[in-house]
C-alpha cells in the first residue's frame, strides 16, 4: 500500500468520525429535547381530555287543554240532596255523562255559566265531561235539613282526612268510588293518638270497576278518640269521601257532614270558616312524619293573623293524632271577628276542625292555595259567606256569585295581602260562587248557614293537563 493512499484514508476516517460525532451530538440534543417535549405534549393532551359524563336532559312537562275530567259526588246524606254541575271554563256548551249507583246513566247538558241540576237518588254519582266542558268541571251536592254540602272532587291519589272517629258519639265512614271500568286498589292508613293502627280490612282495598264500597269506622275499629286517615290509591282511580257523624248531640238525633280531604301535610294550615255560635270547637292535628312536631294555633281575622297569649301550643309525636279543644280560645273577646284558624307547625302536619253549632255539625278542612280562578256549586237559599286568607302577596280577589240560570248576582273585588284576608257575603240565591285571585294566591272557603252550618273549601280547578316530556330511554 502506498503512502499517499494511507494518508488519504486516515484523513477520510477523521472526516467520517467528525461527521459522525457531529451527527451524534445533534441526535443527542434532539433526543433530549424530545424527552422533554413529548411528556409535555402528552400531559397537555391529557389535561385537555375532558369527556362529558353521561347526561340525560330532564324534560319538564308542558301544558295542554284538559280533554276529559271526572268528578265524583258521594252518596247523599238524606233523600233530598240535589246535585248541581257546571263547567266554569269555556264559553261553550257540552254534555256531561252521568253514572253511578245514585243516578240513572245518561247525560246532562251543560251551558256556559249555568248550573245544571242532575236528578240523583241514593248512592254516589259519577260525572264525566269530555271535550270543551272538561276543564273546570265543578259539581256540588248538598242537603238542606240539616244543612250539609260538599264539593264533588276528582279522584285524588293521596290525601288526608283528619278528625274522624270511630266511637259511639262521633263516628265516621269512608266511601270509596271507582269511576272507571278497571278495578282499583287503595290503602287506607289509620292514625290514632297512640300511633298507626293496624287495620287489615283497609289495606289493599279492591274497588271493582264502576262501583263503590263503604266502611264504617265505628264498626270496623270501635274505639274512642280522634283519628286521621291517609288514603293512598295503589292502582286505578278512587274517589274518597268521608262522612263525619255526630250522634247524641243535645236536642238532636245526630248530624252528619262531609269531611273534605287535605292533599298533603303542610307546615302552615289555614282552616277558614266556622259557625260563630259554635258550642264546641275541636281541632285535630295529625303528624304522619317520623319526628315530633310542635304546632301553634293562631286566629285569622280580617285585619291580621293573631297569636293570642293563651293560644295553645301542641306537641304532636310522630305518627300520632292530637285533639285540641279551642272553645276557650274562640270564646275569647279577641276572637270575636276571627273567621279562621291558622296552624303553624315545625313540620308538616294535617288538621281538621269540628264545630257543633245549634245541634248541627260543621267540619272545616284545610283549603288549597289558589292561584287561578276557582268555583263551587252551592245550594241556593242558604246564607253564604266567603272567607279569604293566606294571600301570598299583595293583590286582589274578586268574588262573583251567579244564580243557577247563570245570572251574575254580585261581584265584589277585595284587596288582600299577607296576614290580611277578607270576608265577603254572597247573596243567598247564589248557586255558583267564583273566586278570582289577582297577583296573589289565596285560600278560600264558603261558610253556609241555614238549618245548620256547613263549610266547603275551594279547590284548585283542573283546567289544563300536564303533558309530560317524553323521550326514548335506554332500556
Amino acid at each position: 500500500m502506498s503512502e499517499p493512499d494511507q494518508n488519504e484514508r486516515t484523513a477520510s476516517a477523521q472526516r467520517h468520525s467528525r461527521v459522525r460525532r457531529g451527527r451524534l451530538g445533534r441526535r443527542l440534543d434532539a433526543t433530549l429535547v424530545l424527552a422533554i417535549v413529548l411528556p409535555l405534549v402528552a400531559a397537555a393532551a391529557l389535561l385537555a381530555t375532558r369527556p362529558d359524563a353521561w347526561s340525560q336532559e330532564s324534560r319538564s312537562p308542558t301544558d295542554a287543554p284538559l280533554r276529559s275530567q271526572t268528578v265524583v259526588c258521594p252518596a247523599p246524606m238524606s233523600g233530598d240532596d240535589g246535585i248541581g254541575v257546571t263547567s266554569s271554563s269555556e264559553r261553550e256548551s257540552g254534555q256531561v255523562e252521568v253514572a253511578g249507583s245514585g243516578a240513572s246513566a245518561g247525560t246532562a247538558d251543560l251551558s256556559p255559566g249555568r248550573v245544571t241540576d242532575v236528578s240523583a237518588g241514593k248512592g254516589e254519582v259519577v260525572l264525566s265531561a269530555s271535550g270543551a266542558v272538561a276543564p273546570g268541571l265543578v259539581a256540588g251536592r248538598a242537603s238542606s235539613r240539616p244543612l250539609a254540602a260538599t264539593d264533588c272532587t276528582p279522584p285524588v291519589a293521596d290525601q288526608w282526612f283528619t278528625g274522624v272517629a270511630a266511637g259511639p258519639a262521633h263516628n265516621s265512614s269512608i266511601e270509596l268510588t271507582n269511576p272507571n271500568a278497571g278495578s282499583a286498589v287503595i290503602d287506607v292508613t289509620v292514625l290514632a293518638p297512640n300511633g298507626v293502627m293496624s287495620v287489615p280490612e283497609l289495606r289493599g282495598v279492591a274497588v271493582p270497576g264502576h262501583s263503590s264500597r263503604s266502611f264504617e269506622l265505628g264498626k270496623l275499629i270501635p274505639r274512642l278518640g280522634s283519628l286521621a286517615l291517609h288514603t293512598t290509591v295503589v292502582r286505578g282511580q278512587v274517589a274518597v269521601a268521608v262522612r263525619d257523624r255526630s250522634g247524641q248531640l243535645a236536642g238532636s238525633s245526630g248530624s252528619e257532614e262531609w269531611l273534605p280531604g287535605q292533599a298533603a301535610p303542610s307546615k302552615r294550615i289555614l282552616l277558614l270558616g266556622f259557625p260563630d255560635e259554635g258550642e264546641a270547637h275541636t281541632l285535630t292535628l295529625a303528624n304522619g312524619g317520623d319526628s315530633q312536631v310542635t304546632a301553634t294555633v293562631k286566629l285569622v281575622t280580617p285585619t291580621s293573623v293573631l297569636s293570642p297569649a293563651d293560644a295553645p301550643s301542641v306537641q304532636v309525636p310522630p305518627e300520632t293524632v292530637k285533639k285540641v279543644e279551642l272553645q276557650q280560645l274562640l270564646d275569647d273577646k279577641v276572637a270575636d271577628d276571627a273567621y279562621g284558624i291558622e296552624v303553624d307547625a315545625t313540620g308538616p302536619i294535617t288538621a281538621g276542625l269540628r264545630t257543633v253549632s245549634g245541634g248541627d255539625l260543621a267540619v272545616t278542612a284545610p283549603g288549597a292555595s289558589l292561584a287561578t280562578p276557582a268555583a263551587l256549586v252551592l245550594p241556593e237559599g242558604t246564607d253564604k259567606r266567603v272567607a279569604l286568607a293566606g294571600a301570598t302577596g299583595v293583590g286582589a280577589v274578586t268574588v262573583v256569585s251567579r244564580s243557577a240560570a247563570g245570572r251574575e248576582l254580585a261581584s265584589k273585588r277585595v284587596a288582600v295581602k299577607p296576614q290580611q284576608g277578607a270576608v265577603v257575603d254572597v247573596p243567598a240565591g247564589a248557586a255558583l260562587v267564583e273566586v278570582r285571585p289577582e297577583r296573589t294566591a289565596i285560600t278560600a272557603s264558603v261558610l253556609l248557614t241555614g238549618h245548620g252550618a256547613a263549610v266547603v273549601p275551594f279547590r284548585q280547578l283542573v283546567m289544563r293537563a300536564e303533558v309530560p316530556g317524553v323521550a326514548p330511554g335506554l332500556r
Partner: protein
Amino acid sequence: MHSTVALVLVSHDGARWLPTVIDGIRAQQAPIAAAVGIDTGSKDESPELLEAAFGVVTRTSGRVSFPEAVDLALDQLGDGPDAPEWVWLLHDDSTPDPGALAALLACAEEHPEADVLGPKLREWPSLRRLLEMGVTISGTGRRETGLERAEYDQGQHDEVRTVLAVNTAGMLVRRRVLRELGGFDKSLPMFGNDIDFGWRAAYAGHTTIVVPQAVVFHAEAAHRGVRRTPLTGRHTHYQERRSALYTLLANSRARSLPFMLLRLALGTLWRMLGFLVVREVGAALDELAALVNVYGRLGGILAARRSRQRRAAVDPAKVKALLPPPWLPYRHGLDFVSDVASALTNQAADVAERRRAAKAEADPASFAARRQAERESQDEDDIPVENGWVVRFFTNPVAVLLTLVGLLGIIGARSAFGTVAGGGLSPVPAGATDWWGLHLESWHALGGGTAVPAPPYVLPLAVLATILGGHTGLAVTVVMILSFPLALGGAWRLLRVVGRLISHRGAPRWLLLWGATAYALVPAVSGAWGDGRLGPVVAGALLPWMVHAALGFADPEPDRRWRAAWRAGLLLSLVTAFAPTGWLAALVLGGVVLAIAFRLVPGSVKDRDVWGPPATALAVPPVLLLPWWLPAVLHGAWRAVLLDPGRLPAPVASGGHLLVGRLDGLGAPWWLGLALPLLALVALVPVRTRIPVLVCWIAGAVIAVVAAVLSWLPLHLPAGTAAAGQSFALVAIQGAAVVAAVLGAQGALLDGIRGWRRIAAGVVATVGIVAAVGGLGWFVVSGHGSLTDDADQLAHEGVPSYMLDTATHDPVEGVLVLRGSVDEGLRYTVLRGDGVTLGTDEITAATPEDQDLTALVRRLASSPDSDVIEQVARQGIEYVVMPSPSDHSVAEGIDASGGLTQASTTDRSTRAWQLDAAPTDPALDGHRSWLRIGLLVIQLVGVVVVVVLCVPTLERRRRR
C-alpha cells in the same frame, strides 16, 4: 442362465442428466442385450448423446407420449423368439446404480412369479433421500409411497415386497406382459401411467415387486417442473391430477364408481379450498381443470374400464390389499393442518432475530454476524441436556411465576364463570343464532324497528359462540376469563421481541414478567373488567398481539412485511370491533410514524413494500367492518361508530383517569396507577434506550391527543349524551408506558447500575413491584366489580319476566316501558324478544328517535283514551309497564282510559297493563336491504382473503 434384457430409454431434453445416465448404464454389472433409445423431439443435444452411446436412436416429435415411445421401442425389439425376455425402462433423468440391473434380475430369478420389478428410487442429486419403494394410490388420487417426506435411506425399508406399482424409471418388466397388457395407457401421456399399469397388471394376475437391493437415482425433472415438455405444459399439477383421477376412475371397482365420482368431485372442491387458503391459486385452478377434463370425457373412461374388465383375472379383493387404507387421506389432512399451524408459529418468530440475520448477511463483518457465528458454533458443540418439560418448568422461576400470575388472573376473573352480566355487560341472548341474526339482518325488531346495524363485535362473538356449540354465555365467559392470560402472553411475547431489538440477549426475563403482568392488569385494575366493559378487556388482550404483528413492518423480507400487514390489519379490525376509536388512533399514529420514517429515510417513500404494509393494515378494518359503519352512517346513527360497546351510561375517563389507567369511580386505588406513568418518565433517563423509549412516548402522546380531541365531541343520542369511546386510549396509553418502562430498565441495566444509581434503581424497582403486586392482589380480592350471576333480570329491569316470556315467542308482542315522572320527564323503551341483550344495547342507543312513537307515548301518558291504546297496540305492544317508582298521575290516567287490563306484577309499586287489543306491527318485519347483503358479502370475502393472506407463505413456494 441369465435372462436377456433390453434397455429402453426415453429422453426429452435430458442432456443435463444423460451423460451420467449413460455412465450408469455402462457401469451395469449385468449384461444388457439390447438398448433402444427413443428421443421425443429434444431441442438440446440429447439425441446426439444417445446416438454416441447406443448407436441408433429413434427420433420422434415432441408430441409423442411416454406410452407411445415405449410402444415404439417394443416394436423395434420385435416379438420373435430372439426377442429379449425383459424390458428395462429408464428415464433420461434416472441413473442406475452399477448393481441395479443385476439385483433386479437376481430377484426375478428368486421370485419367478414376479412380472414387474422395480428398484429403490433415491433422490438425485442428493443420492441419499428415498423417493419411492413402490407406489400405490389413495382413494383421493394421491400418489402414496408409504415414505416420510425426504426420508434418508438407511436400509430401513429394505425388504422385497409386493406392491401395486413401481415407477417406470428403472422398471424391469417382462416384455410379454408389457405386450399383453397393451403397454402403458395412451391417455396418460406423462404422469401416473406407472400406477395405472401396475393396477392393470395386478388385475390381470401379474405380480409387481420392489427390489430394494436395486437402486436407481431419479431427478423427477418433470414432476418438479424443472423440465417442461409439450405434454406437461406449464401446468404440471393439472397433468398429475388429471392422471390420478383418470387412474382411479378407470381402475376402481364398478360398484364403487358412482360413489367415487361424487367423492372426487367434492374432494376437488375441498382441495381447491385448501390451495386457496395457502394462496396457491394456480394449483386450485389446475385441480378444477383436471376434474372438468376427466369428467367431460367419461366416455373414454368407460371404454378404458371395459378393456380392463376384459383382462381381469383375479379377485378384486386381492388387488384391494395393495391399495392404501381408506383413512390415509384424513391422516394427510391432519398433517397438513399441523404443518400450517407450525408454519404460523414459525412465522411469528422473532422479527429481531431475522433482522439480525439479514444484517449479518449484508455485512459479514458486523457484530451481528460475529455473534451469530459464535452462537452457531456453540449450538453445535453444546449437547443440550434433555430434560422433561416438567423439570425444565419447575427449575425456571420466571416460568413458574408467569404461570402463577396467569392463574391468579383467572382466579381474579372467577366471577365470570357461569352466567355473567352486570355493569356495562348485558345478558347474552339465548343462542348463537340470535347473534348471527343480529349481524345478518338488515332490519332489527328492536323497539319500533330499526335499520341501525349491529355493533361490529357481534360477529366475532357469534363465531366464538358457534365454535363453542352455540353457547353464548360460554362465549362471554371465555372472553372474560381468557382476556387476562391472553394479554399476559401477548405482552410477554411483544416485550421479548422489543427487548431483542435493543440487544441480542433481549430484556431480562424477570423484567418481561413484570412488564407483562403490569400490562395484563390494565383492563382489570382500570375497573373496566369489573364493570363488564368488553372494549378495554378485549382490546387490551389483543393490542400486544397487534403491535407484535405490526413489528413485522420492520422485517427485512418484503414477503414477511406483507404477511405482517394482513395480520396487523386483521387484529386491528378485531380491536376496532371492540374499541371503535382504536382505528382512528391507529390511523393518526400510523400517519405520524410514516411521516417520521420518511423524514429519516426519504428513499423509502418510493418503495411500495415499505409504505404499503402499514397502509394496508390501516385499510383493512374499514373494509372488514363495512357492514357496520356504512349502514350506521346511512341510517343517521354515525355516533354509534364512536361509541364503545356496552350498556350506557358508561363510566368516562378524563385525562387524569387515562394517566393512571382508571375509569371514573372504578377500579383499584388510583395512586397505584401512578407507577406506570412515573416509570415511563424515568425510562427517558437512560441514554442508550432513549430513542426507543421516545417512540413509545410518541405513541402515547399521539393517542392522548386523539383521545383529547374525541373527548370534546359529545355524542347526542336520543336517550342522552354520551362520551366517545376511550377504551383504546385507556389500554394503549398504559401499554405504551409499560413498553417504555421495560425498555428504560433494559437500557439502565445495559449501562450498568453503580453508585447512586443503585439507590435510584432500587426505588424505581420497588415502585414497579408494588404497583404490579398491588394491582394483582386487588384484582384477586375485589376485582369482580358489578358483575353478577343473576343476569336475567338485567335484560328487563323492573319488567315482570312473564311478559318477555311471551315476547320471546313473537317480537310483535312487545312491552312498552315507561320510566320517570311527569315533573322530570318520561323515558320510554320498547322491549322485545329476550329484552336488552348483548349486542342490542348499541343498536337501541343509536337508533334515531321515532317521533311518531314519542308523540304516541306522550298522548298515552297525558290523555290516554281507547283510540290511543289501539294505536299503541298497532305499534306491536302488548304490555305497558311503569317500573317502580311509577308516576301515579300517569298510571291513573292509563287506568282510567279503558282498553287495558291490569297485569300482575311482583312489586306493588310497579304498574303494568295488558292491552285488550291484539298487538300488530307491520314495521317489524321485512325490509331486506340489498345494500346490507352486498356489504356482508364484501365482509365475508374480505375476511377470507385477509385470513388467507395472513397465512405464512409455505417454504416450498418461498424457495421457488
